Every structure is written in structure tokens, then in C-alpha cells.
């Protein structure tokens, strides 16, 4: 059952190695006394090393119970939990949890301890020296983009919600655990902060390659963060366990369809980044060019807009034919409302930007804001179609195992699945 652990290697980024461990839940069941139905019933699930696996489902479906059984905060009634070939079902729970990072909503920070003490608490329990802990705390604060000198001695109540959440992640990573469990980590922050924290988590993951298991009820979050998504219904019945692309393109049943909600095509836009699609060329003009010259170049290329760049090739204006005919020479004014997206933005972000621009397209900039090209609605539509086709035709190697014993029919029908080919995955 561990083939996929080795398969996972060929999906690793070029610059860093996987530091995560694989997790195997083997026929795990949780029954609470006095309840007839099991909260989790015979769940077998494989979580590949170095991947982000999102557990999603409606509330009360047992996804949080499943998560907490991995670090045995909730002891399974039956079944085994295997961490990197290592059966941890019967070892000391506290020792196990020190090897597994744990992040909850709003960070769960200890209000009576400073940020540094909070982060250093697991290393301290593991008996690290003071100097080593202090150095580690600073390193982690840097990792979550907080200035150690400013935040080290603050108390949780002196931080914003987003900052508390960052410290929560830093604390979970303190002893460099191979596995990180997150329970609705971004549920308590506002949407803008949430988006930023998600991006940050992806950056951290790109660097560290931990195995992350994350519970959420927000399907969009699952699509954005997950290499793999596990969709549960009541009793932790695993309905579909697949890549976001596959789930969007080919939902296993009606429940999944409803759960995805409307606009599955639109959701695929968050899976692709601007630098993965072909950008259209544009007529580029420099400050001081003759208006008539630029116009004739537009005629030649058959375009209607010309992009004006400054001496460092940053776009400053986007002129129509009509604007150009009125100009003698191109000025060096900077248009503050220029529709610009970075090349790391998702197609979703790009679409947002181009819909508010008068040209129905957006300018793409790369490193140091230099102009790369133009992205328009057709490009985005092409990308959706291609992603869809790709997901439908891709082969099934490397899909991790996920079944409920006795309920194979709900899962087995989804047929062939794809290898995750997520950007930066």
C-alpha cells in the first residue's frame, strides 16, 4: 500500500527534498460509547509523504475525528495508524504528538506566554538547549514573515488574528515534525487575511515539503491548497479521494457535485497560474515614441492597444488607437488604474482583473514588474478547456488508497484517476 510514497518522489520540486512522512490509516473505526453509529467506520486512507491532503465535508461528517485520530488526540476504537512504516497505534500518545505539528483555528496560542515561549514549547519539552530554541524561534518567525525583533516578546493578545494564526503555524513547525495537522486553520480570519495565509502556507510547503493534513469545510480552500482532496459524507464515508482537477472535472456522484457547488469550471481557474498559460504578444511603445509610428505598428500587428513601458520595461500606460491618434509623442504619465497581474497570480485573479478593465484583458508582469505579455478572456477559456480534457484523459498512477471497508461501491466507481500535477506541487 506504500507504492505511492515512492511515486511521490518524482513530483518533488527541483530545489528541495520531501521532509514529510507518509501516513496510513488502516481500517480505522471510532465508536463513541452510547452512540449506535460509528463516527468513523472502517476508514482506510493513505496520505502520501510531502503532500497537502485536504479533508472536506459537511459539519459532523467525522473529518475532524479522522484528523484527531492521526495524532491520537482521539483514540481509535479499532484499526492501526502507521507513520512512515512505523505503527504508532500503541506508543505513548504524548510522545507521538510531539512528533506531529498541530494547528487549530485561531492558533490556540497560550495567552500567558510570549510568542517566543509559545513557539519554543515543544523543543523545550524535547530537551533542546536554550540557545538552540532561541535560534529556532527566530528562524520560524522569519519563515512566517514576522520580524523576530518586533514580535518575539509580544503576547498573543497583542497580535492580530492573522498574526496569531502565523504563530500557531510556527509553533507547530518548531520541532521540525514530518507531519502537520491543521483543523480549520483559517476559519477565524477575514477573507483577505485568509487568502494571504493560504498563499503563505503554500510557499512554506514549497520550501519544507511536509506532509500536511488539513480539515476544512470550504471546498474552495481545499481546491486551492490541496494536492489531494478527500470528500467525506456522514460517518466519515470517503466519497472521493482524488486531485482537485479530477474532482472538479469528474465528481464521483451527486453528493460531490452538490458539494462542489456551481461553477466547477470557474473553480478550475484557481488551479492554474498565469505563468502556465500562453500569453498574447502586444505592441510595445517607449516613452517619447511618435504617436503615428506606434499607430502604424498597431496596423501591422492587427492590434488595437499599445502598451507603453518605462526605461525598466515596467508597463505605465495602455493606449487605444483613438488615444494614440490624439498624441504627438507618447508621454511618461503613469496610469494608476492599469489592469496588471503578476505571473504567479491564479487565472481566477487574472479574470477578476481583466473583467474590470476596459480592454477586457490584463497586462502580465514578471520579476521586478517587467512587462511579459497580455492575458485575455480567450486564453483563460482555452486553459479551462485544456485542464478539463487533461483531467479526463490522465492516467491513474499514484493515486493514494482511500476506502471504507464494506462500502467499496461508493468509491470504486470513480474509475481511473490522475497523478497530481499541481503547480509547485
Amino acid at each position, binding site marked *: 500500500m506504500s507504492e505511492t510514497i515512492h511515486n511521490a518522489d518524482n513530483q518533488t520540486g527541483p530545489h528541495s527534498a520531501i521532509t514529510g512522512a507518509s501516513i496510513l490509516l488502516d481500517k480505522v473505526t471510532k465508536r463513541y460509547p452510547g452512540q449506535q453509529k460509528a463516527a468513523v467506520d472502517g476508514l482506510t486512507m493513505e496520505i502520501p509523504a510531502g503532500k497537502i491532503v485536504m479533508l472536506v465535508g459537511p459539519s459532523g461528517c467525522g473529518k475532524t475525528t479522522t484528523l484527531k485520530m492521526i*495524532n491520537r*488526540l482521539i483514540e481509535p476504537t479499532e484499526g492501526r495508524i502507521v507513520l512512515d512504516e512505523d505503527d504508532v497505534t500503541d506508543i505513548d500518545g*504524548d*510522545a*507521538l*504528538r*510531539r*512528533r*506531529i*505539528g*498541530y494547528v*487549530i*483555528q*485561531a*492558533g*490556540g*496560542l*497560550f*495567552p*500567558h*506566554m*510570549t510568542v517566543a515561549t509559545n513557539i519554543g*514549547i*515543544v523543543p523545550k*519539552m524535547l530537551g533542546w538547549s536554550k540557545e538552540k530554541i532561541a535560534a529556532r524561534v527566530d528562524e520560524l518567525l522569519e519563515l512566517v514573515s514576522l520580524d523576530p525583533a518586533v514580535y518575539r516578546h509580544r*503576547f*498573543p*493578545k*497583542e497580535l492580530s488574528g492573522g498574526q496569531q494564526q502565523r504563530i*500557531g503555524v510556527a*509553533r*507547530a513547525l518548531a520541532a521540525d515534525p514530518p507531519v502537520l*495537522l491543521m483543523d480549520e486553520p483559517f476559519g477565524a480570519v477575514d477573507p483577505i487575511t485568509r487568502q494571504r495565509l493560504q498563499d503563505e502556507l503554500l510557499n512554506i510547503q514549497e520550501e519544507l515539503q511536509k506532509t500536511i493534513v488539513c480539515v476544512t469545510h470550504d471546498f474552495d480552500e481545499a481546491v486551492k491548497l490541496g494536492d489531494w482532496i478527500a470528500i467525506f459524507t456522514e460517518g466519515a464515508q470517503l466519497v472521493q479521494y482524488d486531485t482537485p482537477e479530477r474532482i472538479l472535472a469528474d465528481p464521483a456522484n451527486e453528493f460531490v457535485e452538490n458539494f462542489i457547488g456551481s461553477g466547477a469550471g470557474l473553480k478550475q481557474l484557481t488551479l492554474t497560474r498565469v505563468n502556465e498559460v500562453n500569453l498574447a504578444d502586444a505592441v510595445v511603445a517607449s516613452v517619447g515614441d511618435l504617436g503615428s509610428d506606434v499607430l502604424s505598428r498597431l496596423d501591422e500587428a492587427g492590434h488595437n492597444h499599445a502598451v507603453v513601458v518605462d526605461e525598466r520595461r515596467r508597463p505605465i500606460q495602455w493606449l487605444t488607437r483613438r488615444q494614440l491618434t490624439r498624441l504627438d509623442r507618447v508621454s511618461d504619465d503613469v496610469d494608476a488604474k492599469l489592469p496588471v497581474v503578476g505571473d504567479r497570480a491564479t487565472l481566477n485573479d487574472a479574470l477578476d482583473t481583466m473583467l474590470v478593465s476596459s480592454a477586457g484583458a490584463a497586462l502580465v508582469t514578471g520579476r521586478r514588474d517587467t512587462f511579459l505579455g497580455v492575458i485575455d478572456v480567450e486564453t483563460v477559456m482555452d486553459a479551462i478547456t485544456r485542464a478539463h480534457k487533461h483531467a479526463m484523459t490522465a492516467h491513474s498512477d499514484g493515486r493514494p488508497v482511500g476506502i471504507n471497508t464494506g462500502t467499496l461501491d461508493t468509491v470504486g466507481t470513480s474509475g481511473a484517476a490522475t497523478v497530481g500535477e499541481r503547480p509547485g506541487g
Partner: protein
Amino acid sequence: MLEFLGDRSGQILFSSWQHLSLVVQCLILATVLSVVIAALVYRSSALTSIANSVSAVGLTIPSFALIGLLIAPFGFGVTPAVIVVTFFAALPILRNAVVGLTGIDRAVIESARGIGMSRFRTLVRVELPMAWPVILAGIRVSAQMVMGIAAITAYALGPGLGGFIFSGLSRLGGANSLESVITGVVAVIILALILDLLLVGLGRITTPRGIRV
């Protein structure tokens, strides 16, 4: 009055010191007992409500009656005094300790357990420090209350300022009797104020900045 004070200044100071010492030592003992009991009961809602009932009912027992009852098994002197003062001191502290421990955000405890702290370590490193301001508020209430109760223990010939009050009352109308009572009462009040100030200071020092209100 001044003459009375002047003549007996040594005795007054000695008794005051004994009074304060009795109260402080009993408070420490009561705090330890209450926190241990609270730590044992706070996880069970049944035991918690028993503890709360005990602390509520216990306070209705007249202290004078209790000390009288204790003279039979323990005789006169320090022992019944310590028992009575500690008993009454423990009740408000127990109540507050239970409230403080049960009032902690579940999420904080869950995250403590989730990062690998044992139950005992969670109690000592997270729950008790977070409940400490509430427990300390209980200690302050207790301190005020048992200052007066400690005076009553003089009935069983316990140490402290109660002697002035009882001897004055027993021969009311006699020479210096009123002075004796007033001295005892005022000294108890002054001691209570001093102790309260000390406890406020203790709170300042021992409450981490992160949970100071």
C-alpha cells in the same frame, strides 16, 4: 486610650504578628488544598457541582459554633484555630479555583494536548497559570474573611488579636475594657488592609502580562 496602647504596645505588636502569621499560614495551606481538590474535580461536572455546593454550604456554618465543636476533640490552643481558619479560607478559594479551571477556553487545552503536553503538564503549565488570576481573587476574599474568623479562634485560646476583643467584652464596663475591644478590632482591620495590599502586589508580580486585564 493612648495610655492603654503605650502600656501594651509590645503585647499588641506580638499579638498582631501572631494573628497575621496564623492567617497567612492558613491561607497558604488552604490555597494548596483548594487547588489540589479543584484539580481533582474540575474535569467531572458531577464532582464540580459537589465542590461548589460544599463551598456554598460551608460558608453558612457559623465559625463560632465550629470552633466550639472542635474544642472537644482537639482541645484548646493552636490546633482548632488552624483547622477553623483553614477550613473557611479554603471555601472561596476552592470555588474560584474550580471556576477558573473550568472557564479556560477548550481550544487552548486542546492545542496543549495536541502539541504533546501530558495532562499533568497541561495542568501545571497552561491551566493553573491561566486560572491563577481567578484563584488569587479567591485568596483575597478569603484573606479578608478569615482575618475576622481568626479573631474568634481566641475563644479556643488560639493565638492572635482575638484575646483583646474577648477579654474586653467579658468585662465590659470595667477599666480599659472598651479600649481593649477597640484595639483588637482596629488592629484586625489594619492587618486586613495590609494583607490585601500585599496580595495585590503578589498578583502584579505573578500574573503574566498576556492575561492581565
